[in-house]
């Protein structure tokens, strides 16, 4: 159990750092959505299924979709 959780936390950190250094904004949004998804899995492990559901639906799905729609309207690559 502790190994799964530490693996997920490391993956989450990698995703967070990747989201901040990616030049391709769509990749950055997907990395941020991955952070949210792992956060929701961790919430489930911490016995908070209510928060996990909200995080998975809003953080991973809707926020990423809104960011991608905004990127389609503007520029895809950061200068």
């Amino acid at each position, binding site marked *: 159990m502790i190994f799964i959780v530490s693996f997920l936390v490391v993956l989450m950190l990698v995703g967070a750092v990747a989201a901040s250094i990616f030049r391709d904004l769509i990749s950055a949004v997907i990395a941020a959505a991955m952070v949210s998804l792992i956060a929701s899995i961790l919430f489930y492990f911490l016995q908070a299924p*209510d928060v*996990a*559901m909200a995080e998975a639906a809003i953080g991973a799905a*809707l926020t990423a*979709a*809104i960011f991608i729609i905004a990127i389609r309207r503007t520029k895809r690559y950061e200068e």
Partner: protein
Amino acid sequence: MRRIVSILLLIIVALGISLSLAKIPFGAPKTKVGRHYIDEGIRETGAANIVTSVVVNYRGFDTLGEVTVLFIAAIGLGAVLTASGGEKKRKTEPASLVLYTGCRLLFPLILVFGTYIFIHGHLTPGGGFQGGAIIASGFLLIYLGCRERRISRTASNLAESLGGLTFVVIGLLGLVFGGYFLLNFLPKGTANTLFSAGIIPIIYVAIGFKVGSELASIIDNLIEES
């Protein structure tokens, strides 16, 4: 030299923070109110899910504020987007057959799942916010896969207004019957059955409709304008 000083400063700050954090007993119950909710929650509210009994019953007024914040955000987004550009129809490429059929098959299942989550909010994990967000993600799927299908604005506005109105009217009825806002004036019933917990399921269904239609209309506005 400056680098060494800054590293030393960082170490001192980190030591200070960690020493002061080590003094705090994390996880130890500090207040008596949490214990009270766990022990007496089912008896006082009739909801088997303690999180729901706190969100809708003990802290129902905060939930009303939260719903209002979401409502104002949706209104602001709609106002900004409709003010910046007029209605314009862009030709969209039709999706492939696999995507189209998959969306049409999955959409009703997602709707049923979201509805289940907010109707059973007082029994199982989840509730109005979670169910509404799941329903909105179903609408997102429809917008991405079947672009020519649209929900009607009137229906979504109606669902949103009715949801908010139900919440406030039930709160005012509590004021009329018992003397304070959002009083649980309906019979509690036996815990762990669908028709129990008084006003909690009604409020959560209202919140589910409201949040679902609000988030769906946010996505609708964004996709329409881009």
